[in-house]
Every structure is written in C-alpha cells, then in structure tokens.
C-alpha cells in the first residue's frame, strides 16, 4: 500500500492513516460503527450525524467516537 499520500488523524486516541478527502462518513463506515448508537466529536466539536458525508477529514484531525456503556 502506498502510504506517501496518506494523512495522519487520531481516532479515539489512536493514530490512523487515511487518504486525503476521506469523509467522516467513510471513516465511520470503515470502522463499522452503528450510526444510531454513537456520537461523534471532531476536534472537540460535536458533529451532527446527518452531516458526516459532507465533512472531509484533514491532517491531524482528532475524532472521538463514543457510545453508552454500563455505569452507575
């Protein structure tokens, strides 16, 4: 795989490499995340899930994907 063109982003604290112009929706699909069970932050801003196909990821973007877990 050619990594030269790829850009680095951070997803849930882990570094990932993606091709430029990769959309947030593509990332969520690639990670196999059920959209109705998660919330997404991009660089500490909450993203409207309806808009994720319109958002292109950029170098050094920080994505947080959260869901509900057990808690008291």
């Amino acid at each position, binding site marked *: 795989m050619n990594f030269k063109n790829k850009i680095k982003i951070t997803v849930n604290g882990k570094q990932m490499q993606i091709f430029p112009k990769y959309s947030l929706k593509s990332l969520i699909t690639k990670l196999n995340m059920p959209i109705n069970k998660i919330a997404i932050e991009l660089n500490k801003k909450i993203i409207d899930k309806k808009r994720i196909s319109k958002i292109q990821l950029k170098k050094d973007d920080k994505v947080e994907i959260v869901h*509900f*877990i057990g808690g*008291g």
Partner: protein
Amino acid sequence: MVDKKFKIGNKIFNSRLIVGTGKYKSFSECAKAIKTSGADIVTVAVRRVNISDKNKARLMDYIDPKKITYLPNTAGCFTAEDAIRTLRLAREIGGWRLVKLEVLGDKRNLFPEMIETLRSTELLTKEGFKVMVYCNDDPLMAKRLENAGAVAIMPLAAPIGSGLGIQNKVNIKIIRQQTKLPLIIDAGLGQASDATIAMELGCDGVLINTAIAKAKNPIQMAEAMKLAVISGRKSFLSGRISPNLLGSASTTNRGII
C-alpha cells in the same frame, strides 16, 4: 392509601427503583437483573468506542432504550466542562435530555464536588437538559440545586459503591421536608433494608448499582431491592406508630384468668 405518581421532569415512571448498569459480569446478567428489578430507568455512561474490536457487544444490543429509559451519567467527570461535554455527546447519541449529573471532587472517596456540580446544573438547565443531580446530603446545597433548576435531588447515602447504607438520616429527612422535587438516594446502599430505610424516610426513589451488580446473586438481589423499595414506600405511606420507650401490651388484660 393511593400513592402519588413517581414523576421526574414531567415524565411518569412506574418503578421507584433506578438501577445502574455498571460492574456486572456480562451484559446478559445486567439485562436479566434489570428485568427482575422492575426498574424502568437505568443509568448509563458515555465512553469511547473500542475501534480495534468492531464486533464487541454493546449495551444497547442488550438493553433496548425504546423499552427502558436510559439516564446518561457523567461518571468520571471532575469539572463542569467535562460533565457538559459528556452530556452533550449523550444527547447526540439519541436525543436524551433527562440526565444524571455527577461531578466528583476526590478520586478516593468519590464525594461530589458541589461547587462544580452547582455550576453544571445551572449551565445544563439553561441548555434544556433536565438534570437529576448526585449531591452531598447537605440541605443548603440541595436548596441551591433546586433553585438552579434541578429536576431531582439525589443525595448520597454513603460513598459510591461503599455499601454502608444511609449515614445521615437526619439530613435526608431535612432535605425531604424542604423540597417537593423527587428525592432519590443515589449512592452507598448495600442491602435491601437500606433501600427500605430510604423509602421510609420519605424518599421518592433509590438508585442502586453496586449493591445489586456485585452481590453474590445479582438477580436475586435485584428482586430483593424491588420488594424492599415497594415495602419501604408502603410503610412510609401507612404512617408508622410513634416510637415509645415503654411497652404497650398487644393483648388486653380484660378476662384474664
């Protein structure tokens, strides 16, 4: 005596027992305990998805948020900003507005940081959240939370997960007398009798996690807690006798041989 409805922020619930979903051995055990408890509100936490294990089981696959009310919490938050960020994310997952605010001040005793808790209550209420507030058993702070817009006051019985039971009944009674808001004992209960005592003090409900999840038999304890809450509530509504230092014979002396 007919009981009044258990109403939080304009929504009516059947069970006065709220159950946490943490610390269970598995999601299936958690789901079974919840079903047995009869609870119709469960607390849940917001955390990062494990992106390296895409097929890992999820809480929502076991406990259907359409059938049971999820109450997102702010566990692990130590500032108002952390708590607000967490609850905004919870709202984004699926529109939850009824939330449990919990801002801690100390990692060992897990007591609430009340200055940040009060600030968070004000900010979240302004944003349209209906905030159920985990707090200290301090009547003055409880009043401030009420004035800030809290929809339920949730004082601790004892430190979270300690199982010590209600340590300050007097304060709980004072808070009961001063507020019409739902009063729910949030943390520190250990056994069924603790839940009954909370209800007998006039609380509207109890929130229990560790005492059920870490019991040797969580499913049976869930049932015990369900019955304890019902029992305590009925006892409270029935109007107990006045305590008396001296005896009062149950059998008349008339006709004694």
